[in-house]
């Protein structure tokens, strides 16, 4: 846990969000402060140092996961602050919302198995020069759970090439030894992509849930460094 600091964080809450409390627990553990829980209908978003769009089933995942939340008034504020360089972390449904609202490239399609999948997966950290991942080692393999029905990352070839060229892939599903194979890809994602950055590197969307393995009692702590890194970055 990093020392308490003044920095303030916000968690956006949509109708149907259900990991908002979980991520608030991890944020408070890392920063020493409870985040602002911001109800989507408000057009006002306080000026904060970190915005989290949490997991869940905003609007029931009806129509398309994240589509209705992406049209919620609060997202204009989130997009504006992201434009000013404020770190934005979208987890699971939050990732879907960030792609639907255009902050991140690509889309999250129905899992190739067509089934909801909830289990721990191995992930390879592709980049550590960001506020989100700097407490991990390059190429480190971490174990974090996924829990989703629509996590099958897809994009057209040009966008994929651009993502790779700009090193915008944050994490990939991998085997325990870090190698990439189909067997360790839980949802059919293109190039085993589990999370991507925007071009500026201050917006991260990821399907796995770091907040779910940030407490030894729950079976692991590989998710904790993401929150401590953010806490340090925004405290600085």
């Amino acid at each position: 846990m990093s020392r308490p600091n003044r920095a303030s964080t916000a968690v956006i809450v949509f109708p149907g969000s259900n990991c908002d409390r979980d991520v608030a627990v991890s944020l408070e553990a890392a920063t020493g402060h409870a985040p602002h829980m911001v109800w989507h209908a408000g057009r006002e978003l306080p000026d904060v140092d970190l915005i989290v769009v949490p997991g869940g089933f905003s609007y029931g995942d009806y129509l398309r996961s994240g589509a209705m939340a992406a049209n919620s008034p609060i997202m204009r504020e989130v997009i504006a602050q992201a434009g000013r360089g404020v770190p934005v972390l979208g987890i699971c449904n939050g990732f879907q919302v960030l792609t639907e609202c255009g902050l991140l490239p690509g889309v999250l399609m129905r899992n190739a198995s067509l089934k909801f999948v909830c289990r721990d997966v191995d992930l390879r950290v592709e980049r550590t020069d960001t506020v989100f991942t700097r407490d991990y080692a390059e190429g480190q393999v971490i174990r974090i759970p996924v829990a989703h029905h629509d996590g099958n990352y897809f994009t057209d070839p040009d966008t994929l090439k651009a993502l790779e060229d700009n090193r915008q892939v944050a994490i990939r599903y991998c085997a325990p030894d870090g190698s990439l194979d189909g067997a360790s890809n839980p949802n059919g994602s293109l190039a085993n992509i589990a999370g991507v950055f925007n071009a500026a590197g201050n917006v991260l969307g990821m399907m796995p849930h770091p907040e779910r393995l940030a407490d030894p009692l729950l079976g692991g702590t590989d998710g904790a460094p993401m929150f401590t890194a953010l806490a340090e970055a925004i405290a600085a």
Partner: protein
Amino acid sequence: MSAAAERPDDLMGLSDGEYDTILDILGRAPNFTELSIFSVMWSEHCSYKSSKIWLKTLPTEGPQVIQGPGENAGVVDIGDGLAAIFKIESHNHPSFIEPYQGAATGVGGILRDVFTMGARPVANLNALRFGAPDHPKTKHLVSGVVSGIGGYGNCIGVPTVGGEVNFDPAYNGNILVNAMTVGIAATDKIFYSAAAGVGLPVVYVGSKTGRDGIHGATMASAEFDDDTYEKRPTVQVGDPFTEKLLLEACLELMATDAIVAIQDMGAAGLTSSSVEMASKGEVGITLHLDDVPMRETGMQPFELMLSESQERMLMVLQPGHEDAARAIFEKWELDFAVIGETNTSERLVLMWDGEVAADIPVPPLVAAAPEYDRPWMATPPRPVVGPDEVAAPGDVADALLTLIASPDLCSRRWVWEQYDHMVMGDTVGRPGGDAALVRVHGTGKALAIATDCTPRYVEANPIEGGKQAVAEAWRNVTATGATPLAVTNNLNFGNPERPEIMGQLVGAIQGMGAACTALDAPVVSGNVSLYNETNGKAILPTPVIGCVGLLDDVTRRVGAAFAAAGEAVFVVGETAGWLGCSIYQRDLAGGCRGAPPPVDLDTERRNGDFVREAILGGRVTACHDVSDGGLAVALAEMAIAGNVGADIDTGTALPAHAWAFGEDQGRYVVTTADPDGFAAAADGAGIPASRLGTVGGASLTLPGAKPISVADLRDAHARWLPAYMTAG
């Protein structure tokens, strides 16, 4: 008797005698709406008319019990001003008709039973029974039910942490889908359904009312032109998103002091909820049905009263709080309508289009509900089958590999990986072990939760089987280190009008009652599902028990996985090699025959209490109860979970297969780093505990059997279910 002359030819399932009682109560013939109300209130489902006199015999009290059966769910004290609120409920028939929606709405219904009492749901479990794997319907039903349970629970964001799955031809035409929810509330913020007080507003919240679940039979007997009711399914569709909003809105309103009473609209929707509130509050209720939010046009009073549309609640508020309450529900984008008020009349009066559509005195409607002492026939006892009467396998190792790859004993991972079992961030003990462990949010405590029943035992001997269901659930909770607090139960049986079926129900209740008393685990809630038959063929008698226990310090828990090489393996409890009705006998030795293993409740209690103390005392590094498949299967599961083998070198006078697969009750396999201390403690307590061998190596070696590599065990255990479900 002029009223009798007007007797309609369709009594909507009521008997002539029941109809006469209605004539007496009303002093006139009921109109169609009134008859519909009596018919649902006096249905087996709502009135428990066949089981009530026997349910009364169950123990329901204890210092930990805050609320026993009779409310929406049971309530037990877990200390620090908190209570666990839980119940199990069946959705068998709807799940057979439409597995996805049937199972989904089953989960939605039990969640409402729990949060209507002020609890935030923290865990779901599901006890599932399907037909033979090779029955043409089974695969489709498994896939639909599992995705329906996941679809609802995952969306609303309550972890699904445990349950059971069995396959048996007896369920080919009647699958069982029993859903359990556990919630947590502050003991001083528990909400009940008694509408005490007059002149109070009656408020409807949630989804609009459609014609969902209104039964064809009732429809046909309606004196309306039938084409207004072109064939429409009675299947209800669940909307977990709306339920999530309803949950948050209700909890937000419950934090204020606006609510006098609240009741979910479950089976028989508006009818049972309004009658329940009026009856418990000893008041009258007048409902203005025109004000009920409707989803469809042309709806009639009887439809509004019988509709089983989901995600709805009825509340009685303190006068003057309507606007504050409305604001909360509108924030959550839900319907909110004042549809009536309480009064002193003790009558249920329904107004429709300026006229009285129904007027029924509530006390007799409830008090005069039929209650039958149905004739019953005790199940004839079966002979005890000795170990030597059950054919031995070529090699115990091969038999073990076959059993752990069988439909009833293989890994359920394929099931629970489709359930979000981690959301809410407190799942300390995930599915795959014995009881699930869910931390009480923000504390160091945890609830241990398990469901169990062994139907083949109940069929062979309902009393012993009833005891065993309670004992196994209690054992699963104990095996984590938790202290069982209370149980809920779901009695799934055939047609109670047949004396042999009624005899199964009676015996099971007697056995359950005895076990609950001996194990200090009172029954605080439950549900009865009868008439589970197709063409005269009943399901196996299936009294499912859900047990909830408390672990004061979650860090003291143990799991079922072998912890470390070099540690000693013990079995606590007597191993006599009981193969009668064992899975080994059923699957590998010619079928289930003879008497099931008896349950000595006194021994069960002492062995469990000893194991729990040893766990809490830090003497035990892993613990797994012994159930289906006996010691061999228990040891294999511990090896697979720990990814390390064991050398089981104990001698035994028993035939190898009886030692390995016997299902003697009251047993636990434990490991310890301090064998002498453990043995001495058992000795001192007068508990039979024998050392079986030592953890270590890459294989499991059983007495008189060739070694099996843990990898082979894991493959066998993991293989069947995914292969079965993906095969074309």
